[in-house]
């Protein structure tokens, strides 16, 4: 199920909230677990079994790690961690990357690995990472072992963040799973956050996304049209993704959870390094804590450090989807980040603020083109047009029309991706804000409902994750 559907908003959510708050405290995790399983089953049916298997396997591994550690047998504990990782990476590899590797080999003339045509279970990239982090956290004593299977199941399946993150580490959520308080203050904060996310998705991401589709599909693309296209994609993916995160965080609050933030206005970053501290924070920190630092981080020789950086960014890239362009996208950032750390960062720091941001934006836009276009031929042609190669005209009437058509939405999108609106709101006197909140809430819900009911255009971008 997707949050931005009438069925979720006007059937699933009210029913689940009602059941949750009617249930006695000690039954609430169980209600959430059943609700989450239903949520997943609705979209993925038989694949729910994989999630259940993953839950059982990691629950058992957590217990094993804990038992071996208590017995002082660190070697066995490490083996249990390794076994958990092999299982999780194994199912992730099989369901996500098998066909990519198989078809890659076949195109090289090696046909001993069959292409299976596997359907990627939604959210598998998110929940395998979460369960993997659990056994590691138990091993590192960052989290206590979870002995209650229902509580652990709730952690794995928790529907607010199940299909599009944020990736929540067990150590952040463990205590909240056992004990959390549901108050009107937290619920109301969740309502506002959820509505902001819903509006980002329905009013901005879906809207601007149509402009990207037009530019991508245009047979007579001009330089201006190509830049307009990647600009619209970069706004679409930001509002889509951060909108999902807002909805997840908001829903979490409604059920008494506090999830960590996933985005901090990434498009106002003043370096690529800074961008990656602001974009999909839960993923970057995951790779940092569970891959980069275990590999040695930067406390090793320069060559090893560069290798570590390379591995982390290759993994980050390919995590985004089973297609080679994502790997290229990850390596593209490896190159920029390495360059910034070695010499470029110092140079960029000397630039005035405006130019620093321009430098970041241009790199990001090119990056999004690599991300958005899976076919290398198409990507090559698109990049060529962006940089005026191959005789594309500077401007075309379609781009002019679409710019006019989307002008207001683009301006709102660009301003909306900066902290401006939030800052302005904070500067209002509390009396004003007291009035503004319910008015904006009702307006937001009404507009979202209108776009939800009227719109057939509601793409789900994360089917590759």
């Amino acid at each position, binding site marked *: 199920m997707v949050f931005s559907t009438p069925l979720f908003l006007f059937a699933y959510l009210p029913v689940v909230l009602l059941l949750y708050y009617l249930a006695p405290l000690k039954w609430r995790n169980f209600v959430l677990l059943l609700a989450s399983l239903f949520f997943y089953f609705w979209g993925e049916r038989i694949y729910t079994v994989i999630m259940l298997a993953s839950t059982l396997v990691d629950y058992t591994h957590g217990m094993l790690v804990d038992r071996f550690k208590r017995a002082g047998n660190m070697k066995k504990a490490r083996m249990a961690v390794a076994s958990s990782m092999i299982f999780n990476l194994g199912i992730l590899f099989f369901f996500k990357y098998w066909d990519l590797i198989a078809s890659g080999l076949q195109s090289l003339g090696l046909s001993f690995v069959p292409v299976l045509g596997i359907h990627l279970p939604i959210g598998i990239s998110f929940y395998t990472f979460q369960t993997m982090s659990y056994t590691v956290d138990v091993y590192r004593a960052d989290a206590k072992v979870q002995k209650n299977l229902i509580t652990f199941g709730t952690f794995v399946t928790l529907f607010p963040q199940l299909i599009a993150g944020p990736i929540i580490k067990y150590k952040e959520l463990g205590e909240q799973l056992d004990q959390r308080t549901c*108050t009107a203050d937290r619920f109301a904060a969740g309502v506002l956050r959820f509505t902001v996310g819903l509006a980002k998705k329905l009013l901005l991401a879906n809207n601007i996304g149509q402009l990207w589709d*037009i530019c991508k599909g245009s047979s007579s693309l001009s330089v201006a049209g190509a830049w307009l296209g990647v600009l619209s994609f970069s706004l679409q993916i930001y509002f889509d993704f951060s909108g999902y995160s807002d909805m997840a965080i908001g829903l979490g609050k409604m059920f008494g959870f506090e999830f960590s933030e996933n985005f901090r206005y990434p498009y106002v970053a003043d370096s690529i390094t800074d961008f990656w501290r602001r974009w999909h924070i839960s993923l970057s920190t995951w790779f940092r804590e569970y891959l980069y630092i275990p590999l040695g981080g930067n406390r090793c020789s320069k060559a090893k450090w560069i290798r570590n950086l390379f591995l982390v960014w290759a993994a980050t890239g390919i995590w985004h989807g089973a297609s080679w362009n994502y790997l290229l996208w990850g390596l593209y950032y490896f190159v920029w980040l390495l360059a910034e750390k070695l010499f470029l960062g110092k140079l960029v720091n000397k630039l005035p603020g405006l130019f620093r941001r321009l430098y970041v934006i241009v790199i990001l836009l090119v990056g999004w083109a690599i991300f958005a276009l899976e076919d290398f031929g198409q990507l090559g042609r698109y990049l060529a047009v962006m940089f005026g190669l191959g005789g594309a005209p500077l401007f075309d009437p379609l781009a*002019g*029309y679409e710019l*006019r058509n989307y002008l207001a939405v683009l301006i709102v999108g660009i301003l909306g991706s900066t902290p401006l609106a939030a800052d302005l709101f904070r500067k209002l006197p509390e009396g004003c804000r*007291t009035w503004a909140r319910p008015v904006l809430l009702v307006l937001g819900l009404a507009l979202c409902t209108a*776009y939800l009911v*009227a719109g057939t255009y509601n793409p789900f971008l994360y089917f590759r994750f």
Partner: protein
Amino acid sequence: MKHKQSVWITGLFCLFLGAMALLTLLLPPKKFSELENRNLEPAPKLSAQSVSSGRFMKDAENWSSDHVVLRDRWVQLKALAERLSGKLENNGVCFAGEDTLLRLVEEPDETQVEKNISAVRGLIDKTDIPVRFGLIPTAASIWADRLPAGIPTLDETAWIDRLYREFGGSTLDLQGTLDAHKAEPIFYRTDHHWTTLGARYAADVILEALELDPLREEELQPRTVSEDFYGTVYSRAGAWWVKPDEMTTMVPEEGIEVTSNFTGKEEPGSLYVPAHLAEKNKYAFFLGGNQPVCVIRTQAKGPKLLLIRDSYSDSLVPFLALRCSEIHLLDLRYYRLSVPEYIEDHDIDQAVVLYGLSMFLEDRNLYLLRR
């Protein structure tokens, strides 16, 4: 945020969700949307099979989206929000100049078009009577000067030229005539059809091609039958702030006998069916709406004409009835038998294949022409 406000906001949110859920569930379900002119999704059927195939989930999602309480109002709110945010179009309809809503035409599927044009060509080979072919451009093409510059819509002139060339036979220059009269209200501003006036100019082109006398002004008696017609393009755009259209007739019905066939049975029909003026889909006023076969018999001395047609012909027929002794209308979306046999069986003298261009490009039933 103060605690009191938190309680307020929590209450507002729960009230909104709860009210939407309960009203949607408790109000009696509608089967048909007048605004959208389509059947709404029926309630999903729960069974082990439909759940395991995912059918049930899909149906339930469609159902919930089709039956949200106040659905039409939400659609209109979205249209307004789009307009206020400076959008120049909504749902494939341009908010064009002079309070006009113009449906934009997308690039067609080449293979379907090729099939269609060769089917029309095929009719020439299958019959001995003369066959003429006419394509009606949409208002977006004739009134292109009301569109904003650069808006993506099909180059209809180029497509009509190409299709006429590929047809190779005798064709009707409707585009030229409509162009010459584009300053007049020849299309509805809120519907995809031509107006009675537009059909009148088209009738002249067809009569000339059939070598019949042109219409004389004194034969025509303009009469307004409705002043609040909101057509299909209006519904699609949800643009409720646009003025309604006026609907007129020009040919009185006296001496014309219509045999309709709405349900597979012949029944006495009528050129004009005023009962439909009380409904949303007022265009069905002409001939009573879609039907597989409709036969018009007149007292005029003239040929027996077969018109292979879509709904544009509904308002055109009264003019042709002034010059033809019989007009047989076949709508291939509903008439599923052989056309050449129909020509044989009914002693037809002349045939005209007449389609709106956007309908023709997408039609999937023209193969019946040569069966």
